[in-house]
C-alpha cells in the first residue's frame, strides 16, 4: 500500500481516518476538560503518591495484624451485638411494613383518587428516600439516646417511604375484577379493600418486606458506628482500640450472617410469590 493509495482513500472516505478537524478538536477539548477536573480533584483532596504509599503500607500492616482472626475475650459481647443487629433489622422492618400498609393504600391511584394529595405524598416518600439510614440513626441517637431503639427507629423511618411506594405500586397493579366482585356483592369501601385488594397484594408486600429485612441486616450491622446499637458498635470500638484480629473476626461473622439470612429469605420469598 503506497502513500499515494493511502492519500486517495483518505480523500474518498475521510471519515475512516479519524473524522474531521472538528471531531478531533472536540475530542481534545473533552479529554483536556476531564484531565483538568481529575487533576483538580486529586490536588484538592491531597491525593499524592506518597500519601497513597504510606496508606497502603499502613493497610498492609493492618491486614497482617488481622490474621488470624480471633474472637477475643469479649466474644459474648460480639454475639450479643450480632443478635441485637438482627433483632434491630427485624423490628425495624416490621414497624416499617406495618406503617407502610395503610400508607400504600393512600398512595395508590385506584384507592385514593385525589391526584394532588397522592402526588405530594409520593414526593414526600422520595424525599425520605434521599436521606441515608445512617443520618436517621444519628438523628435518633440524639433524640432517644444511644442504643438499639435508635437503630430500630432509623430503619423503620428510612424504609417506610420506600415500602409505601412499592406497596402503592403493587396495589395499582392488582386486578380490578376481584374488587368489582365485592362491590357487586354489596360490599362497602372497607370490605372492598379487605376482601378485594388485600388478599391479592399481601403476598407481594410480604415478599418485599422480607427483601427489605435482608438488606436491613446489612445496614443494621453498621448503624452501631454512630451509636445506634448492634454489632457496628462492637466493630467501631475494636477499630478504635486497634484490635485488628477481632475486627477481622467480626467482619467474617457479619458476612456469614448476612449470607445465611439472604439464603433463608430468598427461599421464603420464592415460596411466597410462587416460583
Amino acid at each position, binding site marked *: 500500500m503506497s502513500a499515494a493509495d*493511502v492519500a486517495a*482513500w483518505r480523500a*474518498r472516505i475521510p471519515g475512516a481516518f479519524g473524522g474531521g478537524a472538528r471531531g478531533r478538536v472536540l475530542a481534545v477539548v473533552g479529554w483536556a476538560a476531564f484531565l483538568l477536573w481529575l487533576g483538580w480533584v486529586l490536588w484538592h483532596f491531597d491525593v499524592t503518591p506518597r500519601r497513597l504509599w504510606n496508606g497502603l503500607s499502613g493497610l498492609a500492616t493492618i491486614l497482617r495484624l488481622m490474621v488470624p482472626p480471633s474472637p477475643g475475650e469479649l466474644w459474648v459481647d460480639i454475639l450479643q451485638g450480632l443478635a441485637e443487629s438482627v433483632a434491630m433489622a427485624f423490628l425495624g422492618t416490621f414497624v416499617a411494613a406495618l406503617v407502610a400498609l395503610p400508607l400504600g393504600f393512600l398512595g395508590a391511584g385506584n384507592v385514593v383518587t385525589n391526584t394532588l394529595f397522592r402526588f405530594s405524598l409520593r414526593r414526600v416518600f422520595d424525599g425520605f428516600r434521599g436521606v441515608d439510614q445512617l443520618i436517621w440513626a444519628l438523628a435518633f441517637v440524639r433524640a432517644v439516646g444511644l442504643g438499639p431503639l435508635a437503630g430500630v427507629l432509623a430503619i423503620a423511618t428510612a424504609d417506610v417511604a420506600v415500602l409505601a411506594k412499592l406497596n402503592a405500586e403493587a396495589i395499582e397493579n392488582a386486578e380490578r375484577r376481584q374488587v368489582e366482585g365485592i362491590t357487586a356483592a354489596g360490599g362497602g369501601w372497607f370490605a372492598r379493600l379487605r376482601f378485594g385488594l388485600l388478599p391479592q397484594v399481601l403476598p407481594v408486600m410480604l415478599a418485599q418486606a422480607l427483601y427489605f429485612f435482608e438488606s436491613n441486616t446489612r445496614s443494621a450491622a453498621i448503624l452501631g458506628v454512630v451509636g445506634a446499637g448492634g454489632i457496628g458498635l462492637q466493630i467501631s470500638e475494636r477499630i478504635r482500640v486497634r484490635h485488628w484480629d477481632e475486627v477481622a473476626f467480626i467482619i467474617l461473622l457479619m458476612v456469614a450472617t448476612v449470607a445465611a439470612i439472604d439464603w433463608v429469605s430468598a427461599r421464603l420469598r420464592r415460596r411466597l410469590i410462587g416460583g
Partner: protein
Amino acid sequence: MGLTAGLRPVAALAQDDAAWTGARGMLELQGLTRRFGATVAVDHVDLEVPAGQMVGIIGRSGAGKSTLLRMINRLQEPSGGRILSGGRDVTALQGRALREWRRDCAMVFQQFNLVQRLDVLTNVLIGRLAWQRGWRAAMVLVGGRFTAEERAMALAALDRFGLAETALQRAETLSGGQQQRVALCRALLQQPRLVLADEPIASLDPRNAQLVMDALRDVNQRDGLSVLVNLHHLDTAREYCDRIVAMQAGKIVFDGTPAALTAERVRSIYGITEQEFAAEAEARRAAERAPAPLAVA
C-alpha cells in the same frame, strides 16, 4: 490492487514461502482426532493440502466438518493426531506462535462472527491485530488507533467486494451476505496463507451464497490462497472446488476430483440419493435461517 503485496517485505515473503510450500506441502493432517465424551467427532483424519488448492469438504450435519476446520485453526484442541504445516508441527503451538498460526489460516464462520456494534471498518481491521506487537499493540488496544495504512488496506479490501461505502456503518446494519463478505475482508487483512471457511453460505439466500462463493474463488485464484470450505451442497462444491473431500461420521470417505464424485458414489457413501442429500441440506438451511436475528435490524 493486489492486497497481499506491499506490507510484507518481499525477502521475508520469499523465505516464508519456501517454508510453507516445502517438501511436505502447506497443510498436512496426520491421524487428527477429536472426541466429545464418548462420541468421536473427527476420527483419525489424514489429509494433505498443497498450496493454492480450493478444497470443498462435504458431508451431512454432524459429520465432523466444522470440528475439523476449528481444530486446524486451533479454536478447538485435537484429542489426538498432528497438524503440520511445511513440515512444522502446529499442534502444540502456544502464545505468540499460536496467534501467528491463527493469523496465517484465516477463518470464516457460518454466522459471520462480526462484532455487531462496531463499524464495518474496525471489524475488518481486527484482521490486523495479530500483526501488531509491543508498543503499537498496546496503543491500538487502549485507543483503537489503527494506522492510516491499515485503514487504507481495509478500505481497499472492502472495495474489492463492493462494500467500501458501508465502511462507517455498524456491522449489524448489513445484510447477511454483506456481513459474510466483510468477514472475508477481515480474513484477507490477516494476509493469510490459507482460508478456512466453515459453512460460509449456510445462512445465506441463493443470490448472496453465489456472491460469497465467487468471492472465495476470487481469493483462491487471484491471491493464490488455499481455501478449505465446508459445504453441504454437492452442486456448489462441484462448481467451485478443485477437489472434494467427503466426510461421514468423522472419517474421510471420499477424496478426489469433482468429476469422480458421481451420483452413484454419493449414493454408495451416504445411502441416499443426491436429491435427498440436497433436500436435507435445504431443510437444515431453512431451519437455521428462520430464527436468525442477525439480519438487518
